[in-house]
């Protein structure tokens, strides 16, 4: 990736946001980022792929880095922080048993035993959630991203039943009171719709990497799985990686290097 000065400024802004999310005060007339609202010029060179995928190098993560990624994601997307079991999460953590329950590995390697793993929507190639949605409110884009149309969702939660990975959350209540710090650049959702990670499609359109990828500072690789020269393909060639519940037949797009 060609790191121009502008990209570095954006990265600095995003990292500052992630690290100091709680302490950033309101900057007056509503700009939560270091830059202005994007204009048409920002969308001139979007990132494109035939099939977006992610490789998470779990060896490079510690609790603080994972929390930083989660904070960035949840802040820039106005994900509410609800303390009950009716909570909403786009990016979250779990231990080995929670992340890979089908591995049934009872004597784990020491270095993996207490490791935490980042979980998110896997943007499957064959997503069951898309198959079951009765209104096409969730649908697969041509670049592989499983997208959400919050305007069309009727809140039937069939997609939540269909997802084998527990990646989706439902807005049981109005989320706004639970949003710690609003990011005006991105909408909130409303009560009664299902939401999930959308691979930062709005950043990809501006030529930016997803927020968690930037915040992870090299621990997460993101690229085109169908481009043999892409970073993700290289990393997958060089490292053994597994996916969650591969027997579900969904062909997930998120790989984990253990």
């Amino acid at each position, binding site marked *: 990736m060609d790191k121009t000065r502008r990209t570095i400024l954006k990265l600095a802004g995003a990292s500052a946001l992630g690290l100091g999310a709680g302490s950033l005060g*309101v900057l007056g007339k509503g700009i939560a980022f270091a830059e202005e609202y994007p204009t048409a010029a920002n969308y001139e060179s*979007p990132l494109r792929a035939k099939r977006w995928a992610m490789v998470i190098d779990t060896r490079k993560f510690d609790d603080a880095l994972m929390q930083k990624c989660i904070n960035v994601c949840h802040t820039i997307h106005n994900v509410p922080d609800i303390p009950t079991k009716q909570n909403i999460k786009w990016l979250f953590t779990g231990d080995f048993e929670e992340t890979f329950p089908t591995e049934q590995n009872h004597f784990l390697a020491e270095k993996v035993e207490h490791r935490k793993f980042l979980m998110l929507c896997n943007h499957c190639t064959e997503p069951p959630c898309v198959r079951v949605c009765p209104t096409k409110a969730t649908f697969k884009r041509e670049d592989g991203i499983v997208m959400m149309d919050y305007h069309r969702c009727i809140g039937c939660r069939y997609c939540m039943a269909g997802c084998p990975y527990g990646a989706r959350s439902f807005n049981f209540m109005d989320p706004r009171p639970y949003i710690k710090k609003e990011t*005006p650049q991105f909408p909130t959702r409303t009560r009664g719709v299902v939401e999930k990670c959308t691979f930062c*499609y709005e950043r990809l*359109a501006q030529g930016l990497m997803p927020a968690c990828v930037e915040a992870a500072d090299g621990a997460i690789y993101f690229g085109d799985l169908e481009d043999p020269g892409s970073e993700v393909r290289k990393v997958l060639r060089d490292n053994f990686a597994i996916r969650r519940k591969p027997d579900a037949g969904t062909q997930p797009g998120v790989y984990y290097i253990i």
Partner: protein
Amino acid sequence: MYHAKYIIPALIVFLAVVTFPFWAKGKAAYQVNLTLPPNQTECVESTEFMRTSHMQLLDQWRDQVVREGEHVYTNAKGKKYAMSLTKTCLSCHSDKEKFCDKCHNSVGVDPYCWNCHLTTPKGGK
């Protein structure tokens, strides 16, 4: 018709009352005082177009951004804009209460766009 001498006049009165808003002319023209954004000369499209069709334009933008993945709109004059209610429209019309709500409240429409799409925060929170 039974009781025609009561029914027909009553029907005429009923129709007159029901169609009243369409034919009655009040003394003053309908007044809405919008506060236009300062230092701005040009909207995405012309005022006449926006008056009649801003809702259709927003629906079109919504489907293009969310469902087609297109983010850039070229207006009638060839100028390009990012298709976003908050980032484009509200970056100029930044005070929803002094602009958007003025017409909406007067005609009694309550668009639920604001349930999700944020206006710029005014401070606090």
